[in-house]
């Protein structure tokens, strides 16, 4: 679905590369989490996928990024947006309207969806993220979590095949964060490819299928959740928190008590501990 070949990018006014020699293949139906310290190039990577780089932010672009057969350098971000839906970090800044319904309608009207379908498409998008009841509300009366869901719904209305999100839970409490990721999981199960940048490793390990760890513009680790979490020392060196279940596994391993695969959720950790105690 998304194929990056030896991709490097340097922002026009910057000294060093924001992305260095990235080769990454994201298959259709993937649920990929991207994590890394700030300045690792996570947001830049998402901007490349959505075509904002190199069309909006210019600079030296080497290599290629192909999304659904389209080279992102050759087609416009608007064309790409028929396939890729992007949700940015700043929730307020990306709103184009003051009402929930209009926010979702914006893309539909732009893409010329027939008038008779508008109502059902809005309904569908809002229902998918579970906020059908907020349809007629004004945006400035909503909580952060609700606004984030509106932002996702506004993009979902276009029925994108790929959804990229930049720290969608950045300003949210744990309960709302979980809710957003549950929405993402549902979408992924329905066939949408999801790429999400997130700082909370527990959320990623609980929901994503695979994980990509970035550091200083490069991909350091990429694989299934279990494969990546099997390298706790490298994660610590990069500055990424290791989930406590993985740390526990590491300690048991060091003490010679466990040899199984690294657990990625509390249930698996419980089974592991019970196995050790037995």
């Amino acid at each position, binding site marked *: 679905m998304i194929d990056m070949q030896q991709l490097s990018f340097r922002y026009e006014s910057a000294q060093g590369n924001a992305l260095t020699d990235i080769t990454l293949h994201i298959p259709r139906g993937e649920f990929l989490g991207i994590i890394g310290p700030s300045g690792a190039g996570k947001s830049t990577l998402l901007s490349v996928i959505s075509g904002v780089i190199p069309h909006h932010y210019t600079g030296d672009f080497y290599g290629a990024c192909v999304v659904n057969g389209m080279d992102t350098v050759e087609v*416009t971000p608007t064309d790409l*947006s028929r396939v890729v839906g*992007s949700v940015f970090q700043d929730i*307020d800044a990306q*709103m*184009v*309207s003051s*009402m929930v319904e209009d926010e979702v309608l914006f893309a539909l009207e*732009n893409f*010329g969806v027939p008038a008779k379908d508008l109502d059902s498409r809005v309904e569908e998008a809002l229902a998918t993220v579970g906020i059908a009841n907020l349809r007629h509300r004004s945006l400035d009366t909503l909580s952060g979590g609700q606004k984030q869901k509106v932002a996702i719904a506004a993009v979902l209305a276009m029925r994108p095949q790929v959804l990229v999100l930049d720290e969608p839970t950045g300003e949210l409490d744990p309960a709302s964060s979980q809710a957003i990721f549950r929405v993402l999981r549902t979408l992924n199960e329905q066939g949408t490819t999801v790429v999400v940048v997130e700082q909370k490793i527990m959320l990623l390990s609980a929901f994503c299928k695979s994980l990509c760890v970035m550091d200083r513009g490069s991909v350091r680790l990429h694989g299934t959740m279990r494969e990546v979490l099997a390298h706790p020392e490298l994660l610590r060196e990069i500055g990424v928190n290791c989930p406590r279940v993985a740390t526990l596994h590491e300690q048991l391993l060091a003490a010679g008590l466990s040899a199984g695969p690294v657990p990625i959720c509390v249930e698996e950790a419980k089974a592991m501990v019970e196995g050790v105690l037995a």
Partner: protein
Amino acid sequence: MKGMLQYVHGNTILHKVPPLLKLLIAIAICAACFSTRSLLVLLALIVLDVILGFIGNIGRQTLRTLCSLCKFSSIIFVLQIFFVTQGNALVTLPLGVRITDEGLRFSAMICMRLIGATLPLTVMLTLTRLPDLTRQLVKVLHVPYKYAFAFTTAIRFIPILARDMAAVIEAQTARGVELDGNFIKKLRLLLPLCVPLLVSSIRKIEAGAISAELRGFHLRGKKAA
């Protein structure tokens, strides 16, 4: 907190008047303010604005706006008073500065015009849902969508900027900057803060523009259905 120019929901007759008509009424009141020279008429227009505010169930807010407008225009009043030298001198100050009856009248007129012309616009914008206004601008007046969108976005950004400014002020107060002093002192402390505010708002606008582009903004109008 309800910010300036933010839509206030309601069910009054003014909420139901078509947005364009409301805009027209507001502009008519503005025009009237600038075409009259009578202080009494100006006073009547300001009272009319306030009454409109009360009809729209935003009376308290209207009075608050009126109050801050009065504060602002009192500065203009004081400045203006010394620049008009025609008419009979009421007070003569040293250095040949005199306050005349004509000057007093003229300053009052300028200030009341300012208040009378600003108030109806704020009342109307508070009582109108922006998307409705955009839609009517495009449909009835055939304003190109791009311009209508820019117009509503600009208005939508005012409360966002006000909120950001409040946040900056709060942050500075938390770091020990005393912003309670007199007006000049406050202004001197606030001016440098405008730079980060400007930078952050340009970033916000850019993010908004990208977000609009990624949702097909440029397609609008190309294939008008």
